[in-house]
């Protein structure tokens, strides 16, 4: 029982990271109707920026964090201009292929610059964690959960209670109508890309001390985040969060009780089960394209 509680805590922590990346997926999907296959690479690049600043250059952690976020904002901007914007009038398939190309590029450019050795990024806190009853609460996992809650709350406020949030929503629902109403659609899409690069980056920085910082971390996180969005219901924000948490928990328990080498396979298994039995996800509306 104690072990199960411990695993539950760890699962929620990992799941929170998937939820954050999934949130980035959902935002870009709602704004552009495109799934950004390089979303996981945003996390990976941010984690490497942290390693460069905080470990190699020995800058203070908070300053490294700010630099990494600045880098992510820039990356989101370049990504939009280079990968999405030239293809915005084409069908979804070319855009998907283009984001896959970007994902391959980001992962391997990082590999070329930094080499294949996985890096270690220390956690934010000196204290490794606290013991609460039978469960040991790792400080980094606590941080991940706290930041996820704050970001989700922020996002809710941002989209529902600010003018720019409303404009972003309008853009995602109907680009043509939004532009007729004087909303600068291109700028809104730019903001969406920057925002989702930022939350992808934050997710990567948060999870880096728990995992190793490696080239593969991006694609592995992205796959699970995508599975999370399907489990939750595609395009649904609450679904992405619940799906992410569920997946984190399933995976942690699977690794503990079934098999460690196949840990990364559980997400796929759950994904296929959902696709067969409930493709619309837990919360989702129907995903079939309309007439």
């Amino acid at each position, binding site marked *: 029982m104690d072990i199960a509680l411990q695993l539950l805590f760890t699962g929620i922590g990992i799941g929170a990271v998937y939820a954050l990346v999934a949130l980035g997926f959902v935002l870009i999907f709602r704004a552009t109707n495109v799934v950004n296959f390089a979303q996981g690479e945003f996390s990976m690049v941010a984690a490497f920026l942290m390693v460069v600043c905080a470990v190699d250059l020995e800058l203070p952690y908070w300053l490294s964090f700010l630099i990494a976020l600045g880098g992510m904002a820039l990356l989101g901007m370049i990504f939009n201009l280079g990968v999405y914007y030239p293809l915005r009038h084409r069908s*979804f398939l070319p855009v*998907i292929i*283009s984001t*896959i190309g970007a994902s391959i590029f980001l992962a*391997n450019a990082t590999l070329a610059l930094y080499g294949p050795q996985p890096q270690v990024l220390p956690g934010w806190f000196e204290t490794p964690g606290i013991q609460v009853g039978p469960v040991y609460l790792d400080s980094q996992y606590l941080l991940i959960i706290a930041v996820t809650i704050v970001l989700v709350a922020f996002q809710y406020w941002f989209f529902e209670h600010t003018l720019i949030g409303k404009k972003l929503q309008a853009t995602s629902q109907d680009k043509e109508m939004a532009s007729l109403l004087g909303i600068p659609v291109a700028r809104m899409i730019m903001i969406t890309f920057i925002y989702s690069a930022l939350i992808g980056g934050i997710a990567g920085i948060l999870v880096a001390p728990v995992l190793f910082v490696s080239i593969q971390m991006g694609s592995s996180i992205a796959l699970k985040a995508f599975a999370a969005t399907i489990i939750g219901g595609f395009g649904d924000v609450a679904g992405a969060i619940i799906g992410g948490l569920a997946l984190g928990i399933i995976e942690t328990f699977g690794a503990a009780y079934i098999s460690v080498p196949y840990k990364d396979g559980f997400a796929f298994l759950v994904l296929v089960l959902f696709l067969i039995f409930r493709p619309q996800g837990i919360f989702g509306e129907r995903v079939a394209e309309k007439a």
Partner: protein
Amino acid sequence: MSVEAPVRTARRNPLRFAIAPAHVGYFVLSALVVVLVSRATLDGYILNILMQAATYSVAVFGLSVVLGLCGQINLAQAAFFGIGAYAVGLGTVDYGLSYWLCLVIGTLAAVLAGAFLGMTTLRLGGHYLAMVTISFQQIVTLVMINAIGFTHGPDGVPRIGRPALFQTSQSYLAFAVAALAVIGYCVWHLKDTRLGRAMRAVRDNELAASVAGINVYRTKVAAFAISAVLGGLGGGLFAGGFTYVSPDQFSFAESIVFLTMALLGGVASPIGAVIGTGLLILIPEWLRFLKSVPGLYLAIYGIAVILIIVFMPEGIWGFVTSFLSRFVKPVAAASVPPLVLAPDRTGTDMVLDVKALSKHFGGLKAVDQVDFSVRRGGIHALIGPNGSGKTTTLNVISGLYRATSGNVVLGETDITNLSPHRRTWAGLGRTFQNIRLFRSMTALENVVIGAERRGNSLVAASGGYAALEERALAALDFVGLGPRANEPITRFSYGHQRLIEIARALAANPTLLLLDEPAAGLNSTEKRALHDLLERIAAQGLTILLIDHDMTLVSGAAQHITVLNFGKRIADGESMGVLRHPDVVSAYLGTET
């Protein structure tokens, strides 16, 4: 009306695969290449490159089919390639099976995996397929590395067997090239088969394909399965060629390499696949020094993918063919006998019976308990102000929406719960308010898809493509576009595209034709021509159910009108009476208070 045997006039040669000289030429040339490969003195290095190019090309053909022909993505081609390769590797080494048996087992395993992935995912949007194939790729890699007892793990499988006939590397290469030539021939001609045409239609417009009578889901699954077959087959050939396989040869990165090969050469054609494969095997050999920095090489692939997609979406071969096509004048269409419509007449006087039909979207009752019947022969109009539920009714009748309750009976068939393509088989034809044509095809090819409807008794099954083409040409002649049949859709004006859509529906010889606002966006001359066309269709006994806002057209053409408002039927009856009905007048013009 008489349905005489059509008189054959001067026509283009129908495609006869087996005897066409170009095909004989292809095989003679291939045989020469095979002989050349088996006789020439090749050093080991060249031999390896050719071996890789030949076996990879087979896998890239798979992408030509699934991505090029059918427009569905597959990011796990290396996994299917790996399944084929490991079947040959493990089968010949661990289990002592014959090479041929292993090749068959590997291909079967690949197609089973592919069909399973396709069947679970292809009902959903394309993003799902992309992600699911990536996940599948990761799983296959995980198994290859971790299931050491079965797969030998990261060390791979050495000393793989070859068939007794092709023990030397050079003879095996000749065999691989011969296999490539045969498979390439099949892939090249896939687009001229019924399945190939269905794939292209699905790629261009899924909705239009389904109402043209194509089972979209099954077509996609077939394309995906064929792609997996070719992946598995290529992998089996590869394993025999190099006699060694290991997990890193079949990683996700390799799937991306396959994708880049297909995109670079031109995804639409197997020729492009060979060009892309050849280039992407040769270029890295020339740029060997790049491999000294890990990652640099694939980083360049990543950028190349983006650049190709942005600047050269058709690939090298697509670029060449579209350049050459500028100098080729479309072949003038031959003359054919006039179009005959012979709508099925089984059942009562009422060709369509709609009973208590409802369609709710959440709380909104878009169509609410609507009843009407369409009498056989003549033109029946369904009208109503904007938002009254006309198009929703049409979409429920043609199966794009599922009815919340109620019944739709066509002739004697209850079609309420059939999928759109089955309704088309049952005799329904329709056009769309916003035109839905297959945009990469010519006018004729579009209409051929319609003519190919299952249950179209006017196209002899034995006639092959020639019969379909004749029917399609007749339909185009009927709407006045016969002479331009071989021009691509993009060269036609908006009004003419409408007519092509109508021709596509007519070619299928439907029992009932649904027209969704055919006059929208037409100028007054075009509207008069449309009116005339509707009269000519009705004169042949085909019943039309028409939705339109143009009252001149509706009152002039329709004998019978049903009026909807707020999802309910407010009037139904003979035209003039209905248009004077006080409820109808108030729905359109408002009431005096």
